């Protein structure tokens, strides 16, 4: 059995920040990452981030992993990184079981763990929604922004949240035609600056619209779209056809929460946080002692919030293990202030009402 002081599961924005924060406090950190590289979903975010300077605002997402890895490198004597590690279990006795490179199995028993596994893309139910050519918006981003491959020639985007709007813009940057953006909600869900950006490129945004059906034999060839009423029911006679070879689904994310549930952390389904999330205290510690969580697994938000949550959870996990730096209180207060600030506006209202339901004071 491998020994470790603090294991961080997931090397995305939250996990990397947790690692920086804990390692700089003096904790010995082991990062376990499923992919063969660190950075999580930052590696395909070609757009500049929102927020303020402390959350790397105005920096492109693709450039943030290197900033964090350089930061982490300053404390390299405290950091071990293992990629290609899929966690298959987290058990009551604190043992974590891992498969490394698909065939090597090992166990690790840390004194504390920060779970930062992120979230996954939801799907949408309609006839033939399984046809090839119907892809998650994040998947399309990976294909074009990581590998430089176009998903197709003509794309219909489903979902006018931030991801749907940003990916539409990025599709156009890749030279792909976006024929329209749909959303079943009566209003655009994402930031309106993003919406305006794609609108002035001539892309229509159809609110109160949904996909009725996809048509195609081996791949999608057409999408039938219809209007919905205020109860999200299709309005007969409003159908229109779009000739597309890609239907991009961007209807939100939901936390990748299996490990926390398996470990016995108290979980709660909170729609405002996009799924089943752990009950936690203000240090991002779950109901199981020394099991911390950070990032989208605690509620789906922007990556800027995930990073600050990571810093906070890493700081508090290290302190719990006896690595309490002199400026602990100062840093903690700053991270909490940053999170409050990111959630203070109208966009944060929903998140705050969700957090209220899972926060143990």
């Amino acid at each position, binding site marked *: 059995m491998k020994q470790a002081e603090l294991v961080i599961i997931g090397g995305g924005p939250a996990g990397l920040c947790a690692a920086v924060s804990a390692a700089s406090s003096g904790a010995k950190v082991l990062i376990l990452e499923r992919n063969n590289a660190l950075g999580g979903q930052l590696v395909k975010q070609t757009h*500049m981030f929102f927020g303020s300077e402390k959350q790397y605002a105005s920096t492109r997402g693709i450039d943030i992993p290197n900033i964090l890895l350089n930061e982490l490198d300053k404390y390299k004597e405290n950091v071990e990184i293992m990629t290609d590690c899929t966690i298959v279990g987290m058990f009551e006795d604190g043992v974590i079981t891992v498969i490394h490179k698909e065939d090597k199995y090992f166990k690790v028993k840390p004194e504390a763990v920060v779970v930062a596994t992120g979230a996954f893309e939801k799907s949408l139910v309609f006839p033939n929604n399984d046809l090839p050519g119907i892809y998650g918006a994040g998947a399309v981003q990976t294909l074009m922004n990581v590998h430089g491959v176009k998903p197709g020639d003509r794309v219909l985007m489903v979902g006018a949240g931030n991801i749907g709007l940003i990916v539409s813009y990025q599709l156009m940057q890749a030279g792909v035609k976006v024929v329209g953006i749909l959303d079943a909600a009566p209003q655009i869900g994402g930031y309106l*600056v993003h*919406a305006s*950006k794609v609108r002035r490129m001539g892309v229509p945004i159809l609110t109160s619209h949904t996909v009725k059906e996809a048509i195609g034999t081996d791949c999608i060839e057409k999408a039938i779209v219809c209007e919905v009423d205020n109860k999200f029911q299709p309005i007969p006679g409003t159908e229109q056809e779009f000739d597309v070879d890609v239907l991009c689904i961007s209807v939100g994310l939901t936390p990748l929460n299996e490990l926390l549930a398996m470990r016995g952390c108290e979980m709660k389904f909170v729609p405002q946080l996009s799924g089943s999330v752990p009950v936690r205290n203000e240090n991002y510690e779950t109901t199981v002692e020394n099991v911390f969580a950070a990032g989208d697994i605690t509620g789906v938000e922007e990556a800027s919030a995930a990073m600050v949550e990571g810093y906070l959870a890493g700081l508090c996990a290290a302190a719990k293990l006896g690595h309490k730096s002199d400026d602990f209180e100062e840093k903690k207060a700053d991270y909490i202030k940053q999170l409050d600030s990111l959630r203070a*506006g109208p966009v944060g209202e929903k998140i705050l009402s969700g957090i209220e339901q899972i926060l143990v004071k």
Partner: protein
Amino acid sequence: MFEKTGVPSKEMVREIFPSIDRINKGPVAVIECYKEIPCNPCQTACKYDAIHVGEDINHRPEVNRDNCIGCAICLSKCPGLAIMIVDGSKSEETVQIRIPFEFYPLPKEGDTVKALDREGNVLTDVKVVKVLNPKSFDRTPLVTFEIDREYLYDVRNIRLEVQP
């Protein structure tokens, strides 16, 4: 309607625009950040103390038009690409508009391109007068074009006629 379409109304645009007098004096930033979002790099980037967001980063930015010299540093820093520079000091018939343009190919100085409104409709042909793409802009180039004053409140984008 803005929340349904992403297209601000004419009134909303007029409200955030500087006066014609100010525009005629020289370049000035126009920030189309109509809704509160947690974001303040425009304020951080400004060296002239001309953009104020404040302590709560959700506040909408306010432009101090006396301080603003239209340097355009904020254009390439705004994650929403919501800022443009308007300059009416060069001619009585036309204004110069500077916008961020993150597409390939980039136009060249002297090119004729299509000017588009906030819905992507073609308004008229315009001439590109300047293209800036230094490293400090971090891959958000700025394109300046000259357009008839009648389109001042409508123009917001350009499109290159791509050769097949």
